């Protein structure tokens, strides 16, 4: 950990500092007999944080393991337990990791695959919380965690919005689940719920989200001071710490830095950006660098992605009915009808002044893949911009072929160049 004080750190340093601090806090919590909760990435943490429960995020953790080339060992463990390679690789990496932690806890010995893993050490949970606003896989995965560890599972079910806007009935059902989660937590924690802190945590969450949105807004400028791939990195804190000031502090710093860069006429792209793309889907974590470089090498910068935008969880923190908070957690674009999904993407492309789209056909994510054909066609009908699709996977490195990716990116580059030339003629 850096010796600098956080107030002296740059955004990048703050990001690393707070990520490490969160892991350390979770380990300390466990050591001191406090509760640890594993949470789905867009599940509402507000109730748990209000009860001072240490939060750990398996999706972020799995992405980190993937990025550090440690996924295969965990995937092998899941394979041994009978998990099909068809199951989400985040889920399988996490189940593998959980199994190794469990073996360690039961035998007192650290399994070799765990000892050698580049994964950040996180403790086993005392409870889990899940939410299906980004997939129903998170219901199955967390059912299994709860069963394997014999611990409580809090479910926040946000029904698929087949029509938009979100219905009042849906909001009421979700708000009722928040209230139910509160009573579950009172039982689990053995003490009354802290409503005052809950209010403060909601306010904090909104301050973090406001700073997150400030960062995302920077890609509207041309040339862009923001490299969209940086959002993939900073996402770790909007997932893991949006209800804490860690996220707010880091995002504010980063947004300030970007504004400063913009004022000075600088840009994220060293050299002139040739064109700007939208990345649709989750990052390919084991190949994050390669996927970025292939774009960079041909002068493309990513200035739009709906994926990090899913954490734009703006709501009215003063709304005690919790309907506003319910609405924020259910309107995730992949939890809505195709028409709305397309509109969200169109706005992102427009805001980022994008020239084309790169669709990730993600072997691990059916929900973010099976509508790609229709989404791409509808978007092209509306804005006429070119697109390509590539095969990949968020954390299973075996499902991504760099050569195919590079060819597709090149094809997109050529189409965008051609469109620009045609536009200039």
């Amino acid at each position: 950990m850096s010796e600098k004080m956080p107030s002296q750190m740059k955004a990048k340093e703050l990001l690393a500092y707070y990520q490490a601090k969160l892991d350390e806090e979770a380990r300390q919590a466990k050591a001191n007999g406090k509760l640890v909760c594993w949470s789905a990435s867009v599940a509402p943490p507000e109730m748990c944080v209000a009860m001072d429960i240490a939060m750990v995020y398996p999706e972020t953790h799995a992405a980190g393991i993937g990025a550090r080339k440690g996924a295969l060992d965990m995937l092998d463990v899941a394979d041994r337990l009978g998990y099909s390679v068809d199951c989400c690789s985040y889920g399988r990496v996490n189940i593998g990791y959980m199994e190794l932690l469990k073996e360690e806890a039961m035998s007192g010995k650290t399994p070799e695959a765990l000892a050698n893993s580049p994964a950040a050490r996180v403790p086993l949970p005392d409870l889990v919380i899940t939410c299906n606003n980004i997939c129903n896989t998170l219901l199955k995965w967390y059912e299994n965690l709860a069963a394997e560890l014999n611990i409580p599972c809090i479910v926040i079910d946000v029904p698929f919005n087949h029509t938009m806007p979100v219905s009042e009935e849906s909001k009421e059902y979700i708000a009722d689940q928040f209230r139910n989660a509160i009573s579950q937590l009172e039982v689990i924690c053995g003490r009354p719920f802290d409503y005052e802190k809950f209010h403060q945590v909601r306010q904090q969450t909104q301050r973090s989200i406001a700073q997150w949105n400030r960062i995302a807004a920077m890609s509207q400028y041309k040339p862009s001071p923001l490299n969209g791939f940086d959002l993939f990195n900073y996402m770790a804190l909007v997932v893991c710490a949006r209800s804490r000031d860690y996220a707010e502090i880091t995002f504010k710093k980063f947004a300030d830095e970007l504004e400063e860069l913009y004022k000075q006429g600088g840009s994220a792209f060293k050299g002139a950006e040739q064109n700007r793309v939208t990345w649709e889907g989750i990052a390919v974590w084991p190949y994050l660098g390669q996927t970025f470089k292939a774009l960079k090498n041909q002068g493309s910068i990513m200035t739009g992605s709906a994926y990090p935008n899913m954490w734009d969880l703006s709501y009215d923190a003063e709304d005690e009915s919790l309907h506003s908070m319910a609405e924020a957690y259910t309107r995730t674009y992949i939890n809505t009808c195709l028409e709305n999904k397309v509109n969200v993407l169109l706005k992102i492309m427009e805001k980022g002044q994008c020239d084309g789209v790169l669709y990730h056909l993600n072997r691990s994510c059916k929900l973010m893949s099976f509508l790609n054909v229709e989404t791409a066609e509808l978007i092209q009908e509306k804005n006429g911009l070119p697109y390509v699709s590539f095969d990949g996977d968020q954390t299973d490195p075996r499902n991504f072929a760099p050569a195919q990716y590079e060819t597709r990116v090149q094809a997109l580059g050529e189409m965008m160049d051609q469109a620009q030339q045609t536009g200039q003629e």
Partner: protein
Amino acid sequence: MEQNINALLEQFRAVAANPKKAMEDYIAETGKGVIGIMPLYAPEELVHATGFLPMGLWGGNRSISKARTYLPPFACSIMQQVMELECDGAYDDLSAVVFSVPCDTLKCMSQKWKGTAPVLVFTHPQNRGLESANRFLEHEYAVLQEKLEAITGVKITNAALENSIQIYNENRAVMREFSHVAAQYPQVISNKDRHAVFKARMFMEKSRHTTLVKELLAAIKATEPQPWTGKRVVVTGILLEPDGLLDIFDELGLAIVADDLAQESRQVRVDVPEGNEAPLYRLARVWQNMYGCCVATDTKKQRGPMLMDMVRKTEADAVVVAMMKFCDPEEWDYPIYYRQFEEKGIRSLMIEVDQEATAFEQARTRLQSLAETL
């Protein structure tokens, strides 16, 4: 008597094999239309109360070609089939299609229908223990009811709905009895015929189906059950098709004595509860009472204990897992109940189900070695 049984079975086989004819006959006889019901669960009673025929859309056995444009290879086998049929216009004579979205694949499928029939989507709540979940689903059903009324031009009265609920509850009870009786008469009801009786259920008006099943039960029960020299298995999964797979069970003397298939017994597991509440609310309660299914969230994971209980009650020798290719909700359940089986010494075997398949040699080899070692 045997002749009578066979004549009755022939009727089920004919309907199961030719849903198009079942649809055309229904339209000719009643002058009313047919409404498709996508897997896995829908309040069919609402459709039935309009006088239209609810018809299950559970894939087929086509060679996949057009669907490849719209679905990657890792979409489940049944939805590849449904997509192929959509592209072929096979569903275009339906007046509408009712769509539930309890898994990620179905959410997407509900947004990309390639046929001409209107799609009526509703969402099941997953925090099923809560009263607010019942209320939410009741509202979803009310919206669905309005849409059905607009399409069919029929006002669904509470009286008509209560009548349909009774018809469905009776059919479910009769099918549970059928499953029980078929297990006692494996020489009389082959696995393939057992499936045909269940499958015909999806294509027939339910009171007619009930009458026919009752006749079949009476005819079977008039004979003496014979000792079974083969083995007895419980099957679990989404469905067990094509028939070629069931032939192997029959050839190897593996009698299916109970099933936990979404297409079969899961459809008749839970009745609409009795009570004074409005019928729409009671229909919603069915989902709360559902259990042992991969798309009905269960943080207690009771599917394994449920299957073990089925094994005990039916004195089965093993569980055969019919794993729908690329069905991740089923795949997520497997490791948990597999471990529970191992802990209790229950034999099990997983075979892959691909509706497109025409050759089953791998499944045959695996089932054969299971049969030999039981």
